[in-house]
C-alpha cells in the first residue's frame, strides 16, 4: 500500500493519531506530510516529543488537539507554529493536554490494558495537574486517564507484507502506543520476506492482528535518524526552525518540502540522502531459535 492510500484509508478527519512514538528516531515525517497534503482536519495528535513533525501538522492547520509531553524542535528549541497556534490561534485555536514523558506512556498503557486510568507518583506538585483534565490526584497519587489513539503510525527498519515489524534502537513509547491504538500503520525502510521477521519473533514489535497497513517508504523518517540506515539531518532541522519563525517563512517551507512534493521518492531526490546514509554496518550477533 502507498503512504497516500494508507493515510486516505486510516487517518480520516477527526482521528486521534499517535506519531513519533520512538521519540527522536524513526519519526514518520512522510506520513505527516501526506496528512498535510490530504488536508486532514481536526486531528488529535498523541506523542511524547515530536521534533517538529507536530509543529508542521499544527502549522498546516490539521490539528485540533495535542496530547503530548513536549512539542518543539529537539536540537533547536521552540516550535514556532505551535507557539502561534497557542498564543494567537494561528492558523487556528489548539487545545493542549500537557503530559510528562512518563505520564503519556502510562496513559497509553492504561488504554492497552483497558483500564480507565493508571496511578503514578510523577506529576505531584506540577501545575500540569491543573491544566490537563485527563489527570487527577487521589491521595498521594496521580491518576492518568487512558488515551486511546485511533491509529498509531510507526516507522521501523524492516517489516514484511503481513505487518510483522522489526524496530531497534530506543523504543520510547512505541509498544504501548501500538497496543493502545485501534490499529497500526507500519512504514518501513525495507520490505522483507517473512523469513527475516519470523527468524526473530522477539523483535517483532506488534501483534499483526493490530496492523492495518504496511507501507514501504524508505527515508520516511528524514530528517530524524534511523539506526543502521540514516543519521539525523541536524542542518535540516535548523533550517526548518529558522524558516518557520514567521507564517510566511513556514508557508514557503511547507510548499517547498510538502505541498509541491508529490511523494517521498521525489522528496528524497531533494535531500543529500547519501551524506546522511549510515555506511558502516554493525550487525547484532544472532540468537539461535533452534528447537530440535
Amino acid at each position: 500500500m502507498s503512504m497516500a492510500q494508507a493515510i486516505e484509508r486510516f487517518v480520516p478527519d477527526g482521528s486521534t493519531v499517535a506519531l513519533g512514538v520512538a521519540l527522536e528516531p524513526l519519526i514518520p515525517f512522510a506520513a505527516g506530510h501526506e496528512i498535510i497534503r490530504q488536508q486532514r482536519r481536526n486531528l488529535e495528535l498523541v506523542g511524547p516529543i515530536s521534533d517538529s513533525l507536530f509543529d508542521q501538522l499544527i502549522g498546516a492547520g490539521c490539528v485540533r488537539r495535542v496530547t503530548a509531553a513536549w512539542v518543539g524542535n529537539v536540537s533547536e528549541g521552540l516550535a514556532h507554529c505551535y507557539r502561534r497556534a497557542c498564543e494567537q490561534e494561528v492558523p487556528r485555536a489548539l487545545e493542549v493536554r500537557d503530559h510528562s514523558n512518563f505520564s503519556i506512556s502510562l496513559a497509553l498503557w492504561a488504554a492497552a490494558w483497558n483500564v480507565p486510568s493508571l496511578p503514578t507518583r510523577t506529576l505531584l506538585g506540577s501545575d500540569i495537574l491543573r491544566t490537563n483534565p485527563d489527570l487527577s490526584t487521589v491521595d498521594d497519587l496521580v491518576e492518568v486517564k487512558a488515551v486511546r489513539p485511533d491509529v498509531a503510525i510507526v516507522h521501523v527498519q524492516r517489516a514484511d507484507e503481513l505487518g510483522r515489524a522489526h524496530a531497534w534502537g530506543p523504543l520510547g513509547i512505541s509498544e504501548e502506543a501500538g497496543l493502545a491504538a485501534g490499529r497500526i500503520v507500519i512504514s518501513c525502510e525495507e520490505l522483507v520476506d517473512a523469513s527475516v521477521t519470523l527468524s526473530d519473533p522477539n523483535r517483532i514489535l506488534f501483534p499483526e492482528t493490530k496492523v492495518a497497513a504496511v507501507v514501504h517508504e524508505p527515508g520516511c523518517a528524514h530528517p530524524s535518524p534511523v539506526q543502521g540506515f540514516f543519521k539525523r539531518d541536524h542542518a535540516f532541522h535548523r533550517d526548518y526552525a529558522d524558516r518557520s519563525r514567521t507564517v510566511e517563512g513556514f508557508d514557503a517551507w511547507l510548499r517547498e518540502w510538502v505541498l509541491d512534493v508529490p511523494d517521498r521518492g521525489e522528496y528524497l531526490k531533494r535531500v543529500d540522502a547519501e551524506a546522511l546514509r549510515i555506511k558502516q554496518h554493525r550487525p547484532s550477533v544472532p540468537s539461535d531459535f533452534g528447537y530440535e
Partner: protein
Amino acid sequence: MSEEFTPQELMVAVASREIRDGDVVFVGMRLPILAYAVARNSHAPQARGLFEVGLMRDQPASAFLGTMGDPPNVAGALWATRMSNAMALMAQGEVDLGFIGGAEVDRFGNLNTSYVGDPRRPKVKLPGSGGGADIAILSRRWVTLMSHEPRRLVEKVSFVTSPGYGDGSPGWRKRNGLLGGGPVAIITTLGVLRFPEGGGEAYLASVHPGHAVDEVVAQTGWPLQVSDRVSETSAPTDSELAAIRLFDPEGFWTRS
C-alpha cells in the same frame, strides 16, 4: 584560568562536578550530555547514564549527538528499552542525579517549561515538560542549567512544570508526596545557586570568573540571598576543556 573558555563550557564543567562516581544519571539533552561525558572521562568512571528515550550507557557516545536518540548513542548502549522502563528505575529511587533544562526558575527551584502567562492564552508557549517533571519529582537530586537573566530567574514562575521546593515552606515536597529530594543547584551563565539542606530558598554559592556578586544579584528577578562563604567558581581545568571539546568538536552546544 589556563585558557579561554565560553560560559557554556564553564557550565558544563561545573555540571560535571555534580556527578559522583557510581551515580546513575538521568541525562537530559544539550549541555548535560556533555557534562556526563566529561564526568565519565574524569572523576566518575563508574557513572551510568540513563536517557529517557530508553537507553543506558557507560561510555559517552563516540560521535556527536544532536539528540539523545541519535544512532551514536545507541551503538554500545548497555540497554535499549522502553521509556517507561527508564522511568521505572527513577520512580524506584534508582536515579541519583537528574538534569533538567528550564526557561524560568524561581527562588524555590520551581521550573517552568510550559507557559509564560495565562495557560489559556499564553504570552509564550514553551515546549512543555518532556521528562522534566518526572526528573524533578522522582530523581534523588537534580540540577538545572540556565542563562542568568532577570526574565529567567523570576520571583515566581507563572507555571510550575517541574517542581522544586514549591512554596518553599519546610517539608513541602514530602507533604505533597514528591519522592525525590529536589534541586541541589542552579548552574547559570553567571554563577552557581544552591539550596539549604532539606530544601527551601536558593542562595548564591559561587560566582563565575569575571563576574561579581552585585552583577549576579542584579540579574536575578528576586532579592537573591548570598552565602557568607560565596566563592569564585573554579574554572574548567585543561582536562575538562579537552573533554568538552572532544565531545562537542564543532562547538554546536558550547560555542553558539
